[in-house]
């Protein structure tokens, strides 16, 4: 009988790898972002968002504010790292998502579990003359070639058990050397996203947890990948919660007494800050309010805000534990209100 001894909810934005003074140069990409969605799910251009915001986010881009926000996010990350060391679990189950990394529309699962023994991490090329902050981002997700350990026995067991309980899990035991393909158009993705074939190991959602939360004390990782981002087969928030609960139930009847940490990687709202939703979700984790989490409207859970599903799944698994919000920073990095709500939550008995 395995036991869930800790839960983690962590944002994994590139901004968390670069101090506040780099946030303004980083934010320059927002004017070209095609995923700036309103809370009602409409896609607006950057300029349209600026016009709608009518100055209400002005002043939030001050360097001092950014630096304070950065410090608080790092506090959240350190707290998670230190707690994880203290709890010292045998294995970590990570709910993450894939953004044009290894999953494309030639075979795009809603939920996939990796059951191989080794998880390859590959160095991604970054130009020598790239600005320092770009290199820092690379390092934040693990920027060298090596591999991590999974727990293939547990991964296979979870796949079997979830399949028996009526989940339709894609299963893979091998990472290819190259990945590429297209995604879309469908739903809010109203264009074709194209990624050229290139070497690619495991994705950013897992890299962040390994590099920043585990740091140098690695724990074998079971990856449960949710297609949070791309219509039309994103699991609903309710389905994500049920998945987490089913993982918990499966672990309780596992034949080995392993101590398990579960983590939800990504979120909260981005690339438009939806502070109201973020705070409702954080509150729901603390208050054990499953109905709130399960009933988040679909149109409010797209683009990368959709990664909240990873948290909801982790919460479903860690439901018997108690959540504590370690840090939350709504970072509006432009006058349009684009940026992200970066959150860090710990579940403990």
């Amino acid at each position: 009988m395995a036991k869930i001894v800790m839960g983690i909810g962590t944002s994994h934005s590139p901004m968390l790898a670069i101090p506040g003074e780099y946030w303004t140069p980083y934010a320059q990409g927002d004017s070209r972002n095609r995923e700036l969605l309103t809370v009602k799910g409409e896609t607006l251009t950057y300029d349209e968002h600026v016009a709608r915001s009518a100055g209400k986010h002005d002043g939030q881009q001050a360097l001092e504010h950014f630096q304070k926000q950065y410090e608080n996010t790092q506090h959240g990350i350190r707290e998670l790292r230190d707690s994880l060391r203290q709890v010292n679990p045998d294995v970590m189950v990570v709910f993450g998502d894939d953004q044009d990394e290894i999953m494309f529309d030639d075979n795009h699962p809603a939920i996939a579990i990796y059951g191989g023994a080794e998880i390859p991490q590959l160095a991604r090329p970054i130009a020598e003359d790239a600005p320092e902050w770009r290199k820092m981002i690379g390092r934040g997700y693990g920027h060298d070639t090596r591999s991590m350990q999974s727990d293939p026995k547990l991964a296979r067991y979870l796949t079997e058990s979830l399949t028996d309980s009526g989940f339709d899990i894609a299963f893979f035991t091998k990472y290819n050397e190259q990945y590429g393909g297209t995604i879309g158009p469908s739903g809010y993705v109203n264009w074709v996203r194209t990624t050229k074939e290139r070497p690619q190991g495991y994705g950013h959602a897992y890299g962040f947890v390994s590099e920043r939360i585990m740091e140098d004390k690695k724990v074998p990782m079971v990856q449960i990948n949710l297609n949070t981002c791309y219509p039309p087969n994103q699991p609903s928030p309710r389905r994500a919660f049920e998945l987490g609960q089913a993982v918990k139930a499966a672990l309780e009847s596992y034949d080995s007494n392993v101590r398990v940490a579960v983590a939800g990687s990504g979120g909260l709202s981005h690339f438009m800050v939806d502070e109201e939703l973020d705070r409702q979700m954080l509150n729901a984790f603390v208050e054990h309010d499953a109905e709130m989490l399960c009933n988040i409207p679909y149109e409010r859970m797209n683009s990368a805000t959709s990664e909240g599903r990873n948290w909801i799944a982790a919460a479903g698994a860690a439901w018997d534990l108690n959540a504590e919000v370690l840090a939350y920073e709504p970072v509006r990095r432009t006058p349009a209100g684009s940026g992200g709500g970066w959150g860090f939550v710990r579940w403990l008995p």
Partner: protein
Amino acid sequence: MAKIVLGIGSSHSPMVVTEPEWYPAHAQRDVRSRELWGLDKAHHTWEDLKQTVDPKVTALLTKDKWDEHHERTTAAINQLERLYNEVKPDVVVIVGDDQEELFHEDNMPSIAMFYGEKMHNLNYYDKAPRDSSFKAASWAYGVQRDVPVQSDLAEHIIRELVKAEFDITRLKYLRENQGMGHAFGFIVKRIMGDAETPIVPVLLNTYYPPNSPSVKRCFKLGEAIAEAIEDWDKDLRVCVAASGGLSHFVVAEEWDRAVLKALEKKDDGDIKRLPDDWMVSGNSEIKNWITVGGMVQHTKLEFTLVDYIANYRSEAGTGGGWGFAYWK
């Protein structure tokens, strides 16, 4: 409102589309097969099975019997093809499995749907080894071409399945050198006569553990797909087709008959109780039939068995239980 007007179930083995002279070659595969799943729900070698085979089975391995079986399978498939042509549906939802054709260990879905505009079919003749039994069978899996897909209906079904809490893998395009698997090519060619009628492919991982959907899940999937079809706002007449099965490569006539009986009676209790632990190897393709059984469950369509042939091909009792049926 789209409407399911016809259901078809057809075996698709190379054995059902080749002359008896090829049966020994098909049987040769069994001799070294590692996929012989016995009635005792365990793996066996061909030699093992040969030791314990019912002598009545070996008595059936005659040229006359094989000729008769070949005539009957051919007649049954022809009858389904004629029926298809009479009904002339606007779209065909095909439920089939994948045997290392599109899906491999790098990403093996449990349940998948293709919803691109067209799905490529390959030239099986050129791909098969020379003088092989597969080459002899290749004519029945279609020609190299793009088969049209009712993409809007397929995407609608995916959306509805997600709402009904299915975790569907979706395929919008195939990679270069990929083509639809044999389960789909067979229906397109042998039942639909390579018509331009669009299809909606539903791909089940019936074969490979640990994520093959259970019998119950397949039936429920069928029910949910039927609901999505009937909820579709275009007036399409839809045929649903199950490809593959029944028992192979160890013939299990009694169990096949139980499957057919449960489907005929539309007894969802009996259907859901069909044994998951027997649906392994080729037997697992019965799950395609069960899914179609779920699709027709709440319609007025009635089951007719065209033929069932327990077609033994070796003295170890291997071969296949070939089933051909329709719901009309």
